[in-house]
């Protein structure tokens, strides 16, 4: 990443206002945002969900999604105002001068065509180079993006390659006509951390190689730090601040920007306990004929928090399902508070069910959309304790206060709550059963940074007050640092290691733990460069 790039203006967006239409009314998505971009420069656009960053990225092409419209503003690209062009004129710029890399590569490729055909389709339209030249060029792009079998991978169909590979092929597709600007719209959000590192480095090197300007949209500050020369922070459709990457990281001006990585400042002193709330011993489990857990043994100390970390496919969520009885194990046993638990959900007693509760990743799907908060929290109270009517409502209000909400929420439906509030209601529902063990399955990963911090603090507070034990399943190392006493690392259905936080997070590491930990982006613009140097040496 060189800082001495040209100062020739490529894109200038002035006072962009965009409205969106949903739920039978118009509301503002962007409220007058400016943006400038020079040739060869990479601008990071960062913000939480609903900040309008993706809308801004698409507006840079003069495109708005169906249901949105540009109210006012100028989009000067190479001196042409894209906002004033017709669809027909814009099409001559799209795909060739400006190209777009979408978040979900799997859905964005046409399933009916081979990858090579799609890679070169935009360049083909220019009719500058013949097809065979373009194909050779595409193979070279594939190579520089470190795709395996670059010669032949283009002959495959989209469903035949992995998500990380598709994302890189989409980058090749964007690069093929040698555009002046590429819009990356959350290109690595759907990927695992270890894959993310590969894709990030491939994208960065190719953008550097051709000196292409880019707008990189993400919600992850650490990721954008690796890619961008400058960073612009958006919130609620307005600009919060903009600065050079290094300045922004070392010296953020606005409180909001600081709060974006505040979760990483949360610290919990580790403690352990020889008295186990739950022990699982030599568990094997399978979905149908595919075995997903191999001889898994984990001990959970009473009143403490054990974090289970791993990437998708590591078996961490399956472990949770086995503990709850949703997926009976094939082999091994579960000891809960000194007593053996039946593998099958149906054979466990009501009391056993009450004592183990689970909170899920997506609060949206974890609550019945047709039930009010009162019904959601009240049902376990009624079901387990037989408390009804006024008394039940009093209990529900008590629980709402415990999670820092109040009785005004009683008659709301889940759709009338924000993401953080929904997750709090799920926590209250788990607490309503008065449990001894709560399994938290990726409870914060669907939430924005600032909300994550609030939820983690709440969970810590509740543990102190109620002495409840947590199993915390996550792929996010920052969260692990913030909340756990002990850590279990899982990989491909096996436990790599279990131990105190200080032991796991410090050398010496087993190979996989090392790979996992080193792949987590850090708030250091040189992190990726250093990492790649270290790995190649």
């Amino acid at each position, binding site marked *: 990443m060189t800082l001495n790039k040209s100062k020739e203006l490529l894109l200038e967006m002035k006072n962009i206002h965009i409205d969106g*239409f*949903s*739920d*039978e009314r118009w*509301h503002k998505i962007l409220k007058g945002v400016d943006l400038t971009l020079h040739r060869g420069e990479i601008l990071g656009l960062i913000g939480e*969900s*609903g900040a309008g960053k993706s809308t801004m990225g698409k507006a840079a092409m003069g495109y708005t999604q*169906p*249901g949105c*419209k540009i109210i006012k503003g100028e989009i000067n690209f190479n001196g042409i105002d894209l906002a004033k062009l017709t669809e027909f004129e814009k099409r001559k710029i799209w795909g060739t001068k400006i190209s777009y890399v979408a978040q979900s590569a799997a859905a964005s490729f046409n399933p009916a065509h081979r990858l090579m055909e799609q890679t070169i389709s935009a360049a083909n339209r220019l009719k500058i180079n013949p097809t065979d030249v373009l194909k050779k060029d595409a193979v070279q792009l594939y190579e520089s993006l470190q795709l395996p079998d670059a010669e032949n991978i283009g002959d495959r169909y989209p469903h035949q390659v992995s998500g990380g590979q598709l994302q890189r092929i989409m980058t090749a597709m964007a690069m093929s006509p040698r555009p002046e600007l590429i819009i990356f719209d959350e290109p690595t959000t759907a990927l695992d951390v270890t894959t993310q590192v590969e894709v990030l480095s491939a994208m960065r090197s190719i953008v550097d190689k051709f000196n292409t300007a880019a707008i990189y949209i993400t919600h992850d500050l650490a990721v954008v730090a690796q890619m961008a020369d400058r960073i612009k922070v958006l*919130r*609620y459709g*307005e600009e*919060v601040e903009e600065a050079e990457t290094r300045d922004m990281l070392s010296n953020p001006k*606005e*409180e*909001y920007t600081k*709060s974006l990585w505040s979760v990483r400042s949360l610290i919990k002193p580790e403690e352990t306990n020889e008295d186990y709330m739950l022990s699982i011993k030599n568990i094997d489990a399978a979905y149908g004929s595919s075995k997903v857990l191999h001889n898994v043994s984990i001990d959970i100390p009473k009143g403490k928090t054990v974090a289970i970390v791993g990437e998708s496919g590591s078996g961490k969520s399956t472990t949770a399902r086995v503990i*709850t*009885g*949703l997926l009976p194990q094939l082999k091994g046993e579960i000891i809960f508070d000194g007593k053996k638990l039946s593998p099958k*959900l149906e054979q*466990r007693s*009501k009391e056993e*069910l009450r004592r*183990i*509760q*689970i909170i*899920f990743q*997506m609060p949206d*799907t*974890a*609550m*019945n*959309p*047709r039930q009010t908060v009162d019904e959601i929290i009240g*049902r*376990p109270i009624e*079901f*387990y304790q037989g408390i009804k009517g006024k008394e039940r409502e009093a209990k529900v209000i008590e629980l709402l206060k415990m*999670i*820092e*909400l*109040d009785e005004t929420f009683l008659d*709301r439906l889940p759709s*009338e*709550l*924000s993401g*953080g*509030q929904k997750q*709090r209601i799920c926590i209250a*529902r788990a607490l309503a*059963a008065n449990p001894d063990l709560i399994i938290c399955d990726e409870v914060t990963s669907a939430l924005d940074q*600032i*909300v994550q*911090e*609030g939820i983690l603090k*709440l969970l810590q507070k509740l543990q102190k007050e109620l002495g409840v034990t947590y199993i915390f399943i996550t792929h996010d190392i920052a969260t692990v640092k913030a909340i756990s006493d002990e850590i279990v690392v899982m990989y491909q259905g096996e436990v790599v290691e279990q131990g105190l936080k200080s032991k796991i997070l410090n050398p010496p590491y087993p190979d996989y733990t090392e790979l996992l930990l080193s792949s987590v982006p850090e708030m250091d613009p040189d992190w990726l460069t250093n990492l790649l140097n270290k790995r190649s040496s």
Partner: protein
Amino acid sequence: MSENLSYSAKSEVANLIKRRTRLERLKIALSKAPISAWFGMIVLFIYFFAAIFAPLIAPHGEAEIFPVAYAPWGDGHIFGTDQIGRDIFSRIIYAARNTIGICLLATFIALGIGTVFGIIAALDRRYLDQLLSRIVDTLMAIPVMIFTFILLSVFGPTNFNLIVILGILESTRFFRISRSVAVGQVVLEYVEVARLRGENLSYIIFREILPNIASPLIIEFGLRFIFIIFTISSLSFLGIGIQPPSADWASMVRENAILIQYAQYDITAGLTPLIPAAAIALLCVSINFVVDWYLYITSGLKDDVK
């Protein structure tokens, strides 16, 4: 932006769109309803009104026979009389009661059987699901009209048989749709939460899942209702559906079809057999309009705004 400094869960509402009560939503939906939906709702209201109060509205009795057969329009009989001298207008009104009543009953039977088994299959996903799905696949592969036709010719074409046979055959469609929608819901965590709490099957079906799959079921109900009207009408038209002396639109078409040949001499005669047929078509168009509108509201699939 410094007003957002201190974080509080209660005030975490900046992204939250203002609440609307169900009544407000209904008002908005109705105020934005297209003309077609209004048309459909009004026509449906008239039909159901006619069906319920048939004896009060109809000028003559359902099976009352007058001396003149094939009497022309007007002259005491708005649409004339049929081949044995019954008042056609009155019979059209009574037919609303018979046709709509029988079809509605059959549709409700189908809905009940199909939905309960569909959700059970979705929850089970093992042998029971396999067994039920295979049976339903087989039944669905056979055209309903032909199947009903055969069964009615065997068991006798009574109204009771008609309702039961169609109710069972059509329940396969409700099974399919409720199963496929419920499968999507069953894997959601809120159902798992209920199972983990130890709730029993009927609580999970009726309190957790059913409210969330109501919309597609209501739409399917509308479409199946039309289909059942069609099937019963076709059967009646072929003389094996609703049995005399009950008036029903399709039989009336068949009974008076001969009049169409006199259209050259008296256009009203030619139109007489078409009126009951048009009654069916108008009913189905109206249901379609309302279903389309409902589909539009519930799917959230708003057309492009530009």
